């Protein structure tokens, strides 16, 4: 599965557009990470726990995106966009969307 955030792929022709596909994931961190983060919040610097959490969550969202595209019979997803929103204290929603296409 080719995933790209370009609208037109160089040297490749799109045979068919299959429409929008999306994937989302909401995750919250556990208390241990929360305590560590509040300590680090005092001194500043990178919050490794949060970075990892959001990365995992993004991977999951992308897996869902791919699954949806596969179900449609696509072999590529173009014009992929990410969107993150913090919906509550300590929980974040990751949303990925793109256009499923069939390439030559």
């Amino acid at each position, binding site marked *: 599965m*080719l*995933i*790209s*955030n*370009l*609208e*037109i*792929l*160089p*040297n490749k022709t799109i045979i068919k557009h299959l429409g929008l596909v999306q994937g989302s994931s909401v995750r919250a961190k556990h208390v241990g990470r929360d305590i560590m*983060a509040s300590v*680090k*919040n*005092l*001194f*500043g*610097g*990178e*919050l490794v726990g*949060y*970075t990892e959490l*959001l*990365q995992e969550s*993004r991977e999951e969202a992308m897996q869902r995106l791919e699954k949806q595209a596969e179900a449609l019979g696509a072999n590529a997803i173009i014009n*992929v*966009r*990410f*969107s*993150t*929103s*913090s919906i509550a*204290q*300590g929980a*974040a929603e990751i949303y990925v969307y793109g256009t499923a296409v069939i390439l030559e």
Partner: protein
Amino acid sequence: MYQLIFILVLLIVTYFIGTYLEKKHYISIIEREKKLNKLPAIAIKTPPSVGDFQQQLVLGSVTISVDYFKRFLAALHNFFGGRVTSYETLLDRARREALLRMKESAAEQNATLILNIKYETVSIYKGRGKSVGSVEVLAYGTAMIPE
């Protein structure tokens, strides 16, 4: 009285530790930026010369928090208005670090160019009084890998 002393000590300690950590981070950012200068990351959608390339989505993300002293300073700035320098450096660090991580993962895959860079910023931790505690920055783009 004790509370006041505690806050003062906390401010002084976080000022020194926070400043030290920030300086260390900037040194590492500048060093890695020099190393990855050869790999251009541009915000256009079509490559300048079309060759045989493989496309691959690359991501880089980081979550950085601001220290207690700077948050205190920002609250003061909020009162008087004007530039909030303490948050400027926070976002600058986060953006540059995210771009670097994206470039590093592209360089691992032997990419020569990264197209259509997009940034996504979200403040994920809100401190007391809805002040910004930490931001997450995601940088993403399409790596062009020569075949």
